[in-house]
Structures are given as C-alpha cells and as structure tokens.
C-alpha cells in the first residue's frame, strides 16, 4: 500500500470534520421529528456521553492505525478527533450541569458527593480540558518535550471514562454495552503497553553487551 503524504491526508480533513458533526445532526433531526424519547434530557445526556467516548476511542486508535497501515501522516487528523471528543464531552457536561441541575452549584456538588461515578466523570472532564487547551501549535512549541508527557494523560482519561460508565451501569448490573467499550480501550492501551515493553527489552542487550558489561563492572556495580 502506498504511503500517503501529509498533503493527501490534510485533504481528508473536511470529510473527518463532517463525519464528526453527524451525531449532532442526528440529534437535530430527532428533535425535529419528536424522536428524543419521553425524557430528552436523559437521552441527550447519555447520547453525548456515548459519542464523546466513541471519539475518544477513534483518537486513541490513530497511532495504532498509523503503524499498522504504515501511514504516519494520519497523525494530522488526530487533533481534530481529540477536539471532537472534547466537543461532545462539553455537551455532555452542559446537559448534566445546566439542563439537569440548572447550574445550581449546591445541587451539583451534592450530586457529585452522592454519586461517585459523577465525580469520576468530572475528573476526566477537567483533565480533558487541560489537553484541549494545550492542543494548539503554540502550546506544543512552548511545552516542548513536556507536551507529549502532558498529553499521555489521555490514557488516564480513557480509564476514568470507562470507570465512569461502568459505575453508572452498575445500578442495573447492565454491563453488556460498557464491556464492549472497555474491551476496545483495553486493546488500545494494551497495544501501547506491549510496544512499550518491547522497546524496554530492546535496551537490555545494549546494556548487556560485552564492553558495556566491562564498563559497568569497572564502575563497581555488584550486579555482574
């Protein structure tokens, strides 16, 4: 398969953008056709949460896809995927805080204390906001190497989001759907873990090579 250039990938951006707007268009269509169920607040809160999670999985899937298909330029689509994740997370957050709780701070804090899954969701959202705020070119330049470390927080976010969803479903012991999402997250994070451990192992022969060993023993390391 031909490796696509950065320019060719960039041309895909408008399509990805329109794709990302599809859930929003669906809600508008359903709203127009009286299809938001008897409880629109609940429906839209849950739907926006689901789509934020789907976008998160797509974002996490970019790197494995780049390597599997040997298309490194795909990274150019990653920021848009991440920002769509944030977009749907913002709507999810607004649906709960504004629509359901009426922006009442005391009601919201009571809800957070009463329902641990909301606390976990809020923690994930705050962390995600940090990443969205630093997703621009300027922040990348300013933070340099620290930028990558900061954005590895997405692994933590994905874990928190699954926990949030899992606890939400625990009330009805209804784990069927959430376990599918959990499995996808496990594969996406597990793939990184395996890559990472392979990288670590590659260093071992270097450390264990003859002259290195000599150098180490010369330094008085008792290990040899």
């Amino acid at each position, binding site marked *: 398969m031909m490796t696509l250039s950065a320019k060719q990938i960039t041309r895909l951006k408008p399509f990805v953008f329109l794709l990302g707007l599809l859930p929003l268009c669906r809600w508008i269509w*359903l*709203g127009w*056709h*009286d*299809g*938001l*169920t*008897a*409880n*629109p*607040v*609940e*429906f839209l809160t849950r739907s926006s949460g689901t789509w934020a999670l789907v976008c998160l999985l797509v974002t996490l899937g970019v790197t494995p896809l780049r390597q599997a298909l040997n298309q490194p330029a795909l990274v150019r689509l990653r920021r848009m995927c991440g920002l769509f994740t944030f977009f749907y997370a913002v709507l999810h957050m607004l649906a709960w805080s504004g*629509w*359901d709780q*009426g922006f009442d701070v005391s009601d919201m804090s*009571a*809800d957070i204390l*009463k*329902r641990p899954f909301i606390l976990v969701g809020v923690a994930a959202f705050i962390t995600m906001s940090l990443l969205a705020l630093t997703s621009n070119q300027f922040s990348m330049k300013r933070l340099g190497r620290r930028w990558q470390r900061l954005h590895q927080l997405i692994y933590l976010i994905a874990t928190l989001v699954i926990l949030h969803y899992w606890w939400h479903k625990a*009330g*009805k*012991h*209804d784990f069927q759907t959430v376990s599918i999402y959990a499995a996808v997250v496990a594969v996406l994070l597990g793939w990184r873990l395996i890559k990472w451990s392979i990288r670590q192992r590659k260093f071992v022969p270097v450390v264990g090579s003859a002259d290195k060993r000599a150098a180490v023993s010369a330094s008085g390391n008792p290990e040899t």
Partner: protein
Amino acid sequence: MSKFRYPRIASNEITPEAVWQSRRDWMRSAGALAASSSLAGLSAVSLAASNSTYAALNAETNKRFLVMDPVTPEKDVISYNNFYEFGLDKGDPFLHAHTLQTSPWTLTIEGEVAQPKTFDIEALLKLAPLEERVYRMRCVEGWSMVIPWVGYSMSTLLKQVEPNANAKYVEFISAAQPGNMPGLSSRVIQWPYNEGLRMDEAMHPLTMLVLGLYGKVLPNQNGAPVRLVVPWKYGFKSAKSIVKIRFLEKQPSSSWMKAAASEYGFYANVNPDVSHPRWSQATERRIGEDGVFSKRRKTLMFNGYGSEVASLYQGMDLSKNY
C-alpha cells in the same frame, strides 16, 4: 341549466395498476420499517400507529382521585417504561412487549384465605364498575408522570376471597413467560417479579387494580392485562402483568429486596428526605412537562398522598423502614 361535462383524463395520465400497487407496497413496507426501527428513536408516526390498536374501556371518572397537574402525554406514558422482562432500557418495553401473551390470562388468589379463587380478565372487568383515576407516578430513578388509570380499588378484588386472621401481608407475582420475555435472560433481579404490601396498604382505597390506561385496555408495555398501582410508593412497587396474589402471615421479600436489600426496602414510600444510597430523592423530572427545557420539581412526601396514607406509618422510623 348548464350541462356538466366530466373532465376527460388523458389515458397517459392514468397511473397503471401495477405502478400504484407497487407504490402502495413500498409505503407499507416503509411504514413497517419505521415502526420497527429502534435506531431512529420512537418516531411520532410509529407511536400513533401503535396506541390506536387498543380497545376502548367504559369508565366513569372518579372525582375523588384527581390531581391538578396536567396529565403526561399518552405517547410518553406508553413509550418510557421500566419493565425489565422486556429489557433494561426504558425504550425496550415499547419495542419488545408485543410478544407478551395476554390471552388467555388468569389471576389466582391463594394463601391465607377462606375462598381461593381464579379470575379471568372478563371476570375482573365485570367485578366492579370501572373508574378512571388520575394518579401521580414517581419512579425511584427520579422521574415522574401523571397517569389516567382505569380500574377500581384493589380491596374490591381482595375481599372476594375472604382473607383469614393470619393474613398480614399480600404478595403480588408477575408473569414470567420465558419464550416471550427477552429480559428474563438478565440476572439483574429474580424472576418472576414479585412485590408485597402490608394488609392495610393493600386494602387502602388508593391502591388500585388497573386494567386500562387512557380510557383503553392496558398496552402490553404498561403491564397488560392486569396490574397493581400504589401511587404513594415508588413505581417498582406497582407490579405489572400479575398472575398470582398470595395472602401471607410473614412479610414477603420482593425481587428488588433480594437484589439489593440496602437500596430497596419493603415499604419504598416516596420520601424526599430519605435518599437512595446512590442518589438524592429530593427532586424529580416530570416527563413531558413544559417542553424540552423544563426544570426538576420538588418531590412530595408520600408523592402528595400524605393526607390519605401518612397515618398508616405513624410511629415508624421512615429512614429505617425505607
């Protein structure tokens, strides 16, 4: 008198039969598709098609049991239900409950009684004049509706079997039809679904045996053909599709008590001051009220029926007897 002449239609403007027939077929299949499609949500079209199929019931409005709040739209009452036998999602019963076998149906009453009896639906419909009563319904999950039920006081039925002196509690057992209820494969709660009331609660005039909704026979998803409605308790106490009623000396353990005793007690009276372990019960969302951007409303003690039922619980610690 002027002569009327029929307009002549050119033969090429007449749609050939094969063509209009195929158009009709297409419309029919498109309609069926819309009705069966869960992806598109519960569209108004499929709802309108489904709620007109239930037979009308003759019921007199009982003015003693009216509430001033506007009634919840029928389409919401029949499309947003907790009926785990048909799935855990509140849209599931509307989509799947058509498989419920409601006829023939019998309701057997047994236990601590002088006269155990079995009734079919015809007998229940004739047992007493049907009344329409408008009740508030508060779900333990924090939403509520205002529903025009059709039926009569449960006590009318219970008196038929002459409960004896040992009868302290009444247990209600719902149908479990393995082939027809996809939700029975879920291990969330024990099947068949059961609930219980204290004798005085079951005999209270507010406690209702329900055969209809909105002036028509109960839709399957709302607990056809016969159900219990106890308006001052959380909705799960009002067992649907009842096949058996048992009078007992000891308090029965309900499906929800067995599933999570720390979360669901025997009484389950609506109480804004006693939180569910995982959420507050202080407020509720009234379904279908004031459009999409409505605010939550305050939950009322005993769901607003305190003047009728508070005396049943005098001297009881309601935070312990939740």
